[in-house]
């Protein structure tokens, strides 16, 4: 678990770097730190062991999820060049908080002990509350932060309650002990355990914004600075699903019959709410918020149909979703700046009008991202959906699948509104300039989407 230590140290170093006069060094330093951590993470490849008094478990799955989180963070940070020009911003603090939050994410991914899960969730959440409110003079940013904090704290409280009940039942916080307890109880574990499972699930489902625990999502996504929205919708979601996968497959695998119906119902609701509401949005950012809810629904299918394929499906889906989402937000950042009213960038669909003429490359990148999110073949998003659907079919969950298919069609509707705006609607004809490095990161995200779409096997072989 070199990554956790490295990131914590780097975070502190960054805070000190903030004292330097030149802000220009911060961005490359942060990127370098993330890359270093990514490399260090893969040093532990194929070495499965417990760490820190059985608190954390190093495994290949954990390393892959960590990799996705770090790649997402790398991209988000690379798109943050604007902070350095903004007088009011405090980039050193932002970057440090981002690194600390990744520490939390990694703990959520690699925990073996429920205490670690709780600490990870808290580290990640508190960082997010702060970053959401970092646009201090903006009323909506403040509102979002407060809303997120109040509801998030409440959800964490519920989760903690669940963990306590589990401890009451099993007498231990570690996943393997809980698994052992369930095995020993011969199909009749204490009622406390069932309550605990449900409460922990509620807490985690809040974090990944599954319906009906999703109400904070659109307001928070809209209010937060776009860059942190990108971070939130990818890193938090990936970490949340990795944590759920670990919890459900290791500790609660034996009582699948108990929780799968609950999860399947929530999956259906999430798919419905996310997709149908997204179709009615006029703001791109709010649409992306509901789209993130709907993707939580697709990912949940992989959990509700927990089986040998789930792990692969979730890892692949998270990666496909993350790169596409970051590319989309990255382009929103550039495009929205073109038209600022009342100090707020324009984040409606109409901001994209005529983008194919203003900058064909950006239009192409956003189009590929939208296609991938919509799950059109030959993009990574298609194979993500494909794997999730396969897992569901393997379990015979045909009804959920039919719903998911119908909702995918709705998804095509709202993702394509962006494509239509870019390619077929008239907009201003001023060319939009993008810095070379910014462009490079966006191209890299698109390349990942297309390459994984053509040869998904490249990534599958890792598992």
């Amino acid at each position, binding site marked *: 678990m070199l990554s956790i230590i490295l990131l914590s140290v780097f975070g502190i170093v960054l805070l000190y770097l903030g004292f330097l006069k030149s802000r220009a060094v911060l961005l490359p330093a942060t990127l370098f730190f993330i890359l270093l951590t990514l490399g260090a993470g893969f040093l532990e490849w194929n070495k499965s062991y417990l760490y820190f008094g059985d608190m954390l478990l190093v495994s290949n799955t954990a390393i892959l999820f960590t990799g996705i989180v770090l790649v997402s963070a790398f991209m988000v940070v690379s798109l943050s060049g604007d902070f350095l020009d903004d007088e009011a911003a405090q980039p050193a603090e932002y970057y440090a908080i981002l690194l600390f939050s990744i520490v939390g994410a990694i703990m959520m991914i690699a925990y073996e002990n429920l205490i670690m899960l709780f600490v990870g969730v808290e580290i990640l959440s508190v960082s997010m509350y702060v970053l959401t409110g970092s646009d201090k003079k903006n009323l909506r940013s403040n509102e979002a932060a407060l809303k997120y904090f109040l509801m998030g704290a409440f959800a964490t409280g519920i989760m903690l309650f669940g963990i306590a009940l589990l401890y009451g039942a099993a007498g231990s916080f570690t996943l393997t002990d809980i698994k052992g307890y369930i095995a020993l109880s011969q199909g009749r574990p204490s009622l406390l355990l069932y309550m605990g499972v449900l409460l922990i699930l509620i807490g985690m489902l809040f974090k990944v914004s599954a319906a009906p625990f999703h109400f904070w999502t659109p307001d928070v996504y809209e209010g937060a600075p776009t860059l942190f929205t990108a971070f939130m919708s990818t890193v938090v979601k990936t970490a949340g699903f990795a944590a759920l996968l670990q919890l459900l497959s290791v500790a609660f695998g034996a009582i699948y019959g108990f929780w799968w119906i609950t999860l399947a119902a929530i999956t259906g609701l999430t798919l419905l709410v996310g997709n149908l509401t997204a179709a009615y949005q006029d703001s791109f950012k709010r649409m992306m918020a509901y789209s993130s809810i709907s993707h939580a629904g697709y990912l949940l299918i992989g959990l509700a149909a927990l089986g040998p394929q789930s792990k692969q499906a979730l890892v692949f889906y998270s990666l496909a979703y993350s790169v596409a989402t970051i590319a989309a937000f990255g382009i929103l950042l550039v495009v929205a700046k073109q038209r600022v009213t009342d100090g707020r960038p324009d984040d409606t669909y109409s901001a994209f009008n005529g983008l194919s003429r203003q900058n064909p490359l950006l239009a192409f990148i956003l189009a590929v991202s939208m*296609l991938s999110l919509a799950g059109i*073949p030959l993009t990574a998003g298609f194979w993500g959906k494909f794997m999730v659907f*396969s897992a569901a079919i393997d379990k015979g969950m*045909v009804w959920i699948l039919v719903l998911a*298919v119908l909702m995918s*069609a709705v998804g*095509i509707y709202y993702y394509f509104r962006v494509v239509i705006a870019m390619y*077929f*609607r008239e907009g201003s004809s001023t060319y939009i300039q993008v810095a070379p490095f910014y462009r490079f990161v966006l191209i890299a995200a698109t390349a990942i989407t297309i390459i994984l779409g053509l040869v998904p096997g490249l990534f599958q072989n890792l598992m």
Partner: protein
Amino acid sequence: MLTLSILLFPILAALLVLAVGGKQAKQIAFLGALVELGLSGYAFFSFVPDATSQFAFDYPWIAAGSIRFSAGIDGVSLLLVVLTGLLTPLIILSAFRHTYERPAVFYALILFMQAALMGVFTARDAFLFYLYFEAALIPIYFLAASWGGENRIAVTFKFFVYTIFGSLFMLVALVYLYFKTSTTAGLHSSAITDLYNLTLSATEQTWIFWAFFIAFAIKMPVFPFHTWQPDTYVESPTPATMLLAGIMLKMGVYGVIRLLLPIVPEGVDMWGTTAIVLSVIGIVYGAIIAIRQRDIKRLIAYSSFSHVGLMAAGVFSQTSYGIQGALVQMLAHGINVVGMFFVADIIASRTNTRLLDQMGGITRYTPKLTVYFMILLLGSVALPLTNGFVGEFLLLAGVFEYNNILGAIAGLTIIFGAVYMLRLFQKAMFGKTTDVTTGFKDVSGSESWVFIPLCIMVFWIGLVPNSFLKLTEPAVANLLQFIK
């Protein structure tokens, strides 16, 4: 290797068109399409008439090789490969008379479309088929939505969402079938022929039948899934309309023959009659609406809807006549409908109107156009010795064998077809000249070069249908073994 070149060459040509761009775009695209025509022509002439898949290739692709990049040409694919190969250069040539904005992108999209269509018609792996089936939508969507008419954005959007929605059901069915196949070393198989051999329960047969049926019925389209079609045909630029009506709707019919019939034969036994009834409703309904149209492009769109209904009915009759007829009729209809849309395009662009009431007397100025138009029209109304006759006769024979009454109603198509087509010809070509048709210019040299191959094909298929039927027969007989 031949199939691989057929699949990859249009993509290379499209990239070349994009790279060179500018004024040369259309010439390069045309040359590329001609080479592709040569390749598919070579496949046609060196094809050995038996039931095997020829010129095939097979590479491992996804999931440790259980999903394979594998394609080949058999008797069912062959005519459609030829159709795609033949029509694409003609469609590109027919577009020469217009100047499109950003020509490189325009012609590259047509070539991408061709690559996807070839993929659909040659894929031997179910998932590869699905991927190409979906991939074909993207270029045609951009063609129609970028260069189309006034109302293009809303109309093509409906088309896109509608058709993707349908094919998602097919995806679910395919994934389901994939997991039903027996495993070797923990891996399933998605080869289409492996799916033929599955044993499925009655419930499975039913829902897989409907999953496939909705996907293909929307694509064809069959009544009542046709509502996207007339508007999309009318709003698209003519080359895109030609691609849609000439080739793309055949993807649906082909899908039924390739996947639906052999995989769920009992499903077809249970629900085939429903499918045929819907198709026959489409035949009559489409024809009646076509008779009432004033807009020539819309008239041809509805005629196409009516014709494809007959193909669907013939295929669902599960008879050798019906399937053979559908294969030949797909070729014939593609040729006729592309010709008809070209005539409509010529008339519309010279008179600046598509309304029949404002036309008349064109024939006075245009001996050549009249002849070409007449030949294509006779093909469309299935006059004996033209291409339409062979296909429609076999199709009707197939439906008749299945059910006399449905066959009789489907037979109305020939009468109705004559009514709307002759009305079109009469109103546009004969009668008094009007303001807009005075001084109508006859077809130019390059326009003739579109018509001549089409007219040759009309007679070739009409006079020597056996040169086509004998190629498809063994494959169809083989297919029927899985059905019975």
